[in-house]
């Protein structure tokens, strides 16, 4: 009915995001090795309750249908439920991501009773061994307990959210079985080299062979498995996966971080992708409308080195954040380009300059044991008295 392709409309941006990710706090009781926001400790500058309510008012005015709330662990904010209730009372649906540690029976009952709140439980291994290696000891049991409580309360269709890694890609069927057991829906997303993910991406990202298996598995399941549109870089394998199949950064999605900074997407917490702050005079709407960064992202892209590739129309150069945080040029191939162009480029760059975000709220790690002589000039010296 329309001559213009929808995807072209989306590439030039909408007046308001279709949905956005809002990380409410950098505080988290876990310390997942691949945390894309390098969360751990609360930031003292985090938005106050009143500031959060004002953001929700703006989202309602802009008719943003729903927000994906995350963190950190968003439920540790004392005003978490107040904000959720305010949002759903103002036509802004909520889906929040949690590690499950605060899903009590009472919370589960409350969630089951609401049409406007959805929850996604993070799980990165279908066994405790695989999951806890990434998310920390006990995290598997915590997540499973939360799912049991949700299912018992009658909350159906909640999400089990998996970041696919080299170690869990063989467990896709097992993840599906877990989701089925609790009447939940499986969501599989891509590991990004963002935040602490940069430190583990080399060892954890799926191999080329695993990517192919993943693609075939996802194609076979169609719309039954959600992907958050995160695997469009796999489209050159064949048919595109369900979804918009484009990079939505600054065009149809964005991120508000806990201190109110607005970034192009949840995987791009870095000054290079900082569009502004909701604390500015124009608020969130002003940033979305007027940011120079967003204007650039909405302008026609050149395609750079990928332009001559016959598959450019399918993958559109892949994920901006994946390129950026692996040190690849933004107008070149995705590091996981299915034709191997990204990999050969990574191999060519002997010593990659990998950009690091200045925003890091990781809790300090326990200090490695220091050689005794660093502690005391006399350490290790045994004086024998005769």
């Amino acid at each position: 009915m329309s001559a213009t392709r929808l995807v072209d409309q989306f590439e030039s941006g909408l007046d308001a995001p279709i949905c956005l990710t809002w990380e409410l706090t950098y505080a988290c009781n876990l310390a997942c090795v691949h945390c894309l926001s390098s969360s751990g400790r609360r930031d003292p500058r985090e938005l106050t309750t009143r500031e959060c309510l004002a953001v929700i008012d703006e989202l309602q005015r802009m008719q943003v249908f729903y927000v994906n709330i995350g963190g950190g662990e968003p439920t540790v904010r004392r005003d978490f439920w107040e904000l959720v209730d305010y949002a759903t009372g103002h036509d802004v649906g909520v889906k929040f991501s949690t590690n499950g540690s605060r899903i009590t029976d009472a919370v589960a009952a409350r969630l089951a009773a609401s049409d406007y709140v959805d929850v996604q439980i993070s799980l990165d291994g279908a066994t405790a061994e695989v999951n806890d290696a990434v998310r920390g000891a006990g995290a598997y049991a915590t997540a499973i307990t939360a799912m049991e409580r949700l299912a018992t309360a009658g909350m159906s269709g909640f999400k089990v959210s998996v970041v696919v890694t080299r170690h869990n890609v063989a467990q896709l069927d097992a993840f599906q079985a877990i989701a089925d057991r609790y009447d939940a829906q499986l969501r599989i997303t891509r590991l990004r080299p963002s935040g602490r993910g940069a430190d583990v991406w080399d060892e954890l990202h799926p191999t080329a062979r695993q990517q192919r298996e993943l693609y075939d598995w996802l194609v076979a399941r169609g719309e039954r498995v959600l992907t958050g549109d995160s695997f469009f870089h796999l489209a050159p394998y064949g048919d595109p996966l369900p979804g918009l199949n484009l990079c939505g950064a600054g065009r149809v999605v964005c991120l508000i971080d806990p201190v109110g900074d607005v970034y192009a997407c949840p995987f791009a917490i870095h000054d290079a992708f900082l569009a502004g702050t909701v604390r500015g005079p124009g608020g969130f709407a002003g940033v979305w409308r007027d940011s120079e960064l967003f204007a650039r992202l909405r302008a026609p892209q050149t395609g750079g080195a990928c332009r001559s590739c016959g598959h450019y129309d399918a993958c559109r150069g892949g994920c901006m954040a994946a390129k950026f945080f692996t040190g690849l040029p933004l107008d070149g191939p995705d590091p996981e380009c299915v034709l191997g162009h990204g990999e050969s480029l990574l191999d060519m760059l002997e010593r990659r300059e990998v950009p690091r975000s200045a925003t890091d709220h990781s809790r300090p790690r326990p200090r490695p044991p220091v050689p005794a002589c660093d502690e005391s000039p006399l350490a290790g010296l045994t004086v024998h008295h005769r």
Partner: protein
Amino acid sequence: MAFDLDRAWELEGRVALRPEPFGALAYHFGTRRLSFLKTRKLLDVVRSLGDHPTGRDACAAAGVSAAELPAYARALDALVGSGMVVERSGA
């Protein structure tokens, strides 16, 4: 099953519409599904379904021509399939 233009229809109560240059976004708060209405005229049809005795009347009122009607019926059928548009009971 094809969309029956001669029955009474309406927008599901939990669906919100957001006009866009290309048409509109439709979001169902219950199923959390998003759909795209690809023309402004389809938006007008969907919005006014509840005010007309039949789907055909809603299309006519929005200026859908006889030639366009089959395409609009298909689009409405897809919206029924995703639960955005429902049959009006007690009409």
